[in-house]
């Protein structure tokens, strides 16, 4: 009788311990997704709510690349160069690491999900020192668009994630 009471108490405390530990583990896993030392690590959120970007970044980038390359519309919200500028980590000496290098921002997820995107066969993997276009002011503008991110997230939750999929481009 006494031993079974002790066992029950033991199991209860174990369950309570797990219940407390799981969110802590999740929190740690979330924070480690952004490369330490990158500009992104100092910001609260990405150019869209983090959950949305994780799920749809590839679709957003694919849609906006056609807008830029074919239509010449450079005001697009999602830009691979902006991803790289913000998410590239630095080594101990302070020089930028390629975002697709082992363990870096892009590779970390793509590796575990076994996807190999071709983006970086052509696109640059570190911020371009020659480029003025994606200066901090341009990034500030992107983050200004984030001001309504919380309401946007609410709408995602109410409508479901698929309501926010980008429309395809009609081409002849």
């Amino acid at each position: 009788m006494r031993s079974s009471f002790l066992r029950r108490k033991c199991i209860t405390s174990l369950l309570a311990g797990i219940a407390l530990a799981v969110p802590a583990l999740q929190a740690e896993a979330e924070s480690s997704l952004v490369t330490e030392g990158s500009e992104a690590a100092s910001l609260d959120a990405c150019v869209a709510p983090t959950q949305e970007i994780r799920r749809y970044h590839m679709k957003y980038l694919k849609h906006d690349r056609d807008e830029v390359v074919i239509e010449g519309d450079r005001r697009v919200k999602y830009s691979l160069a902006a991803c790289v500028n913000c998410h590239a980590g630095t080594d101990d000496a302070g020089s930028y690491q390629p975002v697709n290098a082992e363990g870096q921002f892009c590779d970390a997820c793509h590796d575990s999900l076994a996807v190999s995107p071709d983006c970086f066969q052509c696109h640059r993997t570190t911020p371009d020192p020659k480029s003025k276009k994606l200066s901090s002011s341009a990034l500030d503008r992107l983050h200004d668009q984030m001001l309504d991110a919380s309401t946007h997230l609410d709408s995602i939750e109410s409508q479901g994630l698929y309501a926010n999929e980008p429309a395809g481009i009609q081409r002849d």
Partner: protein
Amino acid sequence: MSNKSDQPSMDRRQFIGGTVAAAGAITIAPGVILHAVAGSEEPSAGASSKHRWGLVVDSNKCADGCTACVDACDEEHNLISHDRPQTDAKWIRTVKLKDKLTGKINRLVMMCQHCEFPPCVDVCPTNASFRRVDGIVLVDRHRCIGCRYCMMACPYKARSFVHEALHDQAVSAPRGKGCVESCTLCVHRLDYGNMTTACQEACEKEGHAAILFGDLNDPQSQISQLLLKNNSTEIRADLELNTGVRYLNL
């Protein structure tokens, strides 16, 4: 996508750019005009068919031995040489023409002629070669499969194929192994309101001013006025491609 109507139009930006350029043009020596960069840095709201961008190259002003424009293009787009001239990417190259009868030598630069009816677009099996509505002929590398039909079709030998894996590309000119590429008329500058190409800028800096970029559709533009007052040549005019690059004194 987003609401486009609340953005400044191309016309407004061009007007502002033109005004700034007119105010900022300084003559630093006879024939040497330093243009203030007319870039508003405002991203383009999309190419417009109201414009047709083109170049005029003055063969008389193109100086023998000078490669300023070629070097500037390489620098601008990070076209790295592998010391293999046969296959190295070149978006602009110098050409000498000799009249066999008189011995007169003409020098000019050759690049994508941005045809109105581009043969490269006709033959492309994937629609990777395309003509933007403002007349700039480009390669969408997301679609290019590297078949090189366009290189065969181009009468001007203006296109290059990337044979080597690349890294550290310019952010404004993503390019990689297995794709065909050519002159983009510095579309990355134009789309941010900078109305000068890298080659024109370099040529002016050298003091030759043999290259002029501008809007062929705008009768008031410097390029249209130059073409109105001078005899110009379209290379291989017999093909009736209506090129966007014209030559003077050829």
